[in-house]
């Protein structure tokens, strides 16, 4: 089975209504919390954090 690359593994957002679809979503209240949660997730998932600049961070497996 071929592996999927560049897939979004998780989302960390302050605006949950702007994200939908079968993804693990973590809702946070502010930027500092977003950075903390995303940081932890990136080490756990071996994933890269990207900032969509709309209050949402995504974690991608490259």
């Amino acid at each position, binding site marked *: 089975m071929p592996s999927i690359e560049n897939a979004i593994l998780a989302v960390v957002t302050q605006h949950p209504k702007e994200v939908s679809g079968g993804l693990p979503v973590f809702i946070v209240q502010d930027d500092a919390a977003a*950075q903390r949660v995303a940081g932890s997730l990136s080490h756990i998932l071996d994933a890269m954090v990207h900032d969509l600049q709309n209050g949402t961070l995504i974690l991608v497996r490259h």
Partner: protein
Amino acid sequence: MNPAPAFDVRAFVVGLAAGVIARYLMLRIDYRQYPGYPHGYVSHITHGFLAAGLGAIAWPALISKELSAFTFLALAATQFRDIRRMEREALGLQEQTELVKRGVDYIEGIAKVFEARNYLVMFIAAVSSVVAHQWGLLPGVIAPAAAYLATVHLARGRQIGRIARVKPAKVSFDGPLLKVGNIGLMNIGLEADRKVVLEHGLGAVLQPITPDARRTLADVGQRQAILHDVATVLGLRKDVDTVAFTPLARRDLETGEVGFVVVVEEPDFEVLAEVVRAVPLLESARSRAAHLLQRVRRQGERLGPRP
């Protein structure tokens, strides 16, 4: 009928010595290609020894009609068929554990060079033994020296320094976007990572000198080779789980410049520039397209059929 002359041991030994010495000298030309130091050295010298033996034995065996030597030759020759494949596989396995991979093109280039060097050694040893047999000891030493200089000069690959200038460039962030000079590289979401890149990152831009240089720098395999060599020499401040510090090289589509940022243990731009200039130009990246263009445009050559 005259009896065949005795096997010229002296010529054989001169040829063998010439080949092995040549192989040793070739090792020192480019240390970067040999991962298994010192085990890699042993392997390469041994292969060189075999190749030199094959080359040096040919003429003396032929003259003295020692045909059994030829069966030995044929047997040993089969060992060389797979040298390129063996080297490619060994390097390929090693890729799994590299923080910055070499890339398929670079590996193929190394494997080809390894194969070519063994054949060169055979050639030098053969020349030496022929000359030593016909004209004596001294010419037998001079001939391989000349052959070595000629082949090494001809076979020396070109390097990046010939086709591009290496300039320092400013590392900056536009929001989460890492930029080197004007070139956007990657989106780094974590503030902590951005801080590290600003503090420890070295930014460089490669300016192509000719239109052909543009195409060579555009080649992904070539860029990957540059990043690998820089990371290997300067030491990457990264681990297997910090994906953000993997160096990426990106092109400016207008100017053809290629920029990258490396987060290094030893921040020294002069060393970085020297390493980049010394990166070999990969054969797969050389622009055959440019040659074809020239043939069609300037010489009006027709490449394809007409109905």
